């Protein structure tokens, strides 16, 4: 296994963006809105596509804006359909994000004529190529670090408001902390984080970063502050271990299994998701076994 500077940046960026995702992800879990991460990652596609169509470039700022608006739109539209249409919340979410994603696909196909855009890149990300411009720090690393800082700050400032609106929305609203507005705010932050993560891990793998570290942490601790810390730790670990495995262990194992020599590196983002999942299931098994053994 050869380790280059690019690998370092991949690991750093991966860790930063995973941790940035884990923070709002914990609150999504507590609000029972885990699939919202999936929905937003699909639904921001039309926002980005519209940004391309309007500006004709791949400038980050219009992309960002378009995605955030699309994300907020998803949350609001889902709620309208859920409350006014009395549609079950999972189904409402499904209707909204499937429709928006389809719209996005159509728009991207139309936009692809004018802008050089590979839909596969948008969907799956290519962290390996995102960090190519190393001078001295890749742009994506700055963005990821910045996103992490913003999320950390917001979580700290609104810690108790996020907590009460997740735990007891009725009391929260009665006390003057409107639970719905807190959830909309969380949706916006998730959308912003998702867009930043697009460039590195791709929209669909963002869900892993949002939810799995937080779920693992919830298995381990009953204290919210500890849960947040553990989630970030698991996220960072998955990122590092994932990339290491992607360039060394997995290709070797697969090469042996399939008999094809010299298999190159596999998707780092994919392995990051797999590692987070392995961590989760390992912790689940351990906790479960520990419970069964009489103390």
């Amino acid at each position, binding site marked *: 296994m050869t380790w280059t500077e690019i690998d370092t940046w991949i690991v750093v960026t991966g860790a930063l963006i995973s941790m940035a995702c884990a923070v709002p992800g914990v609150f999504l*879990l507590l609000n*029972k*809105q*885990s*699939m919202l*991460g*999936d929905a937003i990652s699909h639904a921001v596609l039309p926002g980005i596509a519209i940004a391309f169509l309007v500006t004709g470039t791949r400038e980050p700022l219009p992309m960002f804006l378009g995605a955030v608006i699309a994300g907020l739109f998803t949350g609001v539209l889902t709620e309208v*359909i859920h409350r*006014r*249409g*009395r*549609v*079950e919340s*999972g*189904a409402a*979410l*499904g*209707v909204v994000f*499937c*429709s928006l*994603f*389809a*719209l996005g*696909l*159509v728009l991207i*196909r139309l936009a692809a004529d004018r802008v050089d855009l590979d839909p*596969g890149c948008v*969907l*799956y990300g290519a962290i390996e190529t995102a960090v190519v411009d190393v001078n001295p720090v890749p742009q994506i690393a700055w963005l990821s670090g910045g996103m992490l800082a913003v999320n950390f700050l917001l979580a700290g400032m609104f810690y108790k408001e996020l907590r009460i609106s997740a735990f007891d929305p009725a009391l929260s609203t009665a006390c003057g902390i409107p639970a719905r507005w807190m959830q909309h705010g969380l949706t916006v932050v998730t959308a912003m984080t998702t867009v930043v993560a697009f460039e590195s891990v791709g929209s*669909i*793998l963002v*869900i*892993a970063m949002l*939810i*799995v570290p937080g*779920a693992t942490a*919830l*298995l381990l601790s009953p204290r919210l502050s500890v849960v947040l810390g553990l989630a970030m730790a698991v996220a960072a670990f998955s990122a590092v271990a994932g990339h290491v495995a992607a360039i060394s262990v*997995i*290709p070797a194992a697969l090469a042996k*299994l*399939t*008999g*094809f020599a010299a*298999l*190159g590196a*596999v*998707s780092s*983002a*994919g*392995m*990051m*998701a*797999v590692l*987070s*999942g392995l961590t*989760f299931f390992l912790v*689940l098994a351990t*906790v*479960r076994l520990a419970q069964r053994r009489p103390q």
Partner: protein
Amino acid sequence: MKPWPNFPGGEVRSAEMETFWRLISLQDHNTRIVLAGACALGAAAGLVGTFLLLRKRSLLGDTLGHATLPGVAAAFLVAEALGYAGKSLPVLLVGAALSGVTGMAAVILIRKFSHIKDDAALAIVLSVFFGAGVTLVTAVQQLPGGNAAGLDHFIYGKTASMTTSDAMVIFGASLAVAVMCVAFFKEFALLCFDEGFAGAAGWPVRLLDVVLMTLVVVVTVVGLQAVGLLLVVALLVIPPAAARFWSDRLGVMAVAAAGIGLLSAALGVAASALFPRLPAGAVIVLCAAVFFAISMIFGARRGVLVRSYGERQGMVRLRREHLLRAIYECAEELSSPEQAVSVSQLLAKRPWKRNALRREIEHAAEAGLATAAVDGGDVQLTGRGVAEARRLVRNHRLWELYLLHHAEVAPARIDRDADLIEHVLDPKIVDELEALLDSGRRETFVPGNPEKLPT
């Protein structure tokens, strides 16, 4: 080429019209194939999705769909390693199915062995399995003959380039799924409605659940490789949700869902044939979304327009009733129902806001039920108003007595919208209540029967 009036662009337009006619008359073999396959899938997904919706597991299709990717890639790898052709459809399908089933098992395991909630379990399995899938695909892509192994098709589908054998597979599978849904209809209905009761009554709830989930896996896997993940998930979720607005009866809802799925597929295929640049799967989803929007707004049973109209009418009637009753009762206390009462007396009777009360009085005056003196003056019921108020007051007082004397059943029977209490209650009970109202034994706070003349 049909002759067109001579305006510029006439020739180009007529080429499109040609395509359109060929499409409509189903002359194009390819279109026929795609239409048959997509419509069958739409109907089957709509049927199965109905039960998913009622079990509050609409997004299970999303998770299962994403969870099949590692299976597809692994099947390819295993087949190639064993020396077989990796890209054969049965191999990939088996891989997808196995992987989907494993995903399902993982979701169940997470739910069973921890306090992690349903939606989180779905999200975890979705993302982790998909991550594994993406990883394996990048490995597959490096092998000879492994160019993406249909990764693009996995997401977008190759609806437009469906082959005859693909369509046959889809058609057969969809038919089998539909037959199963019909055969197990009442069992699934029971499972969705009241799982506890079903279990207690002796139905094998677990087994039924597994059968339902297997149908979802079949629809997902079969649809996946032909029309793509997005379309399968959308067809499982959107048509049933749309159908819900049209009926409260499960059978009607299931048929409507199948119909909407079929129609969306048909319209989508047609539109996609006319505009070949657009991805067919996405267009089908957009058609389904339009159906949903129409259903949500105009749906006969639960549509927003219908319900809000009903609610608004109810509020208008309630406010009118409150006004008329208040005027009547104030006048009654003074001397007779035709007596004029002042606005301040009305405000003392019920907590209105002054402006709202004024508006109500104006509306009543327009309807010919009352006359109001100039701005803020006294209000008086007209002849029609007195008759209407009498009816309302009598109804109200009889309902009050009913509530007091039949307290255990009254809350369920009370229907404020009924014109006459006789429309709802048994005539004998009404007679009994009227007797109570007239007699001296009536409660001190329920005044007398307005229909009887004072003696």
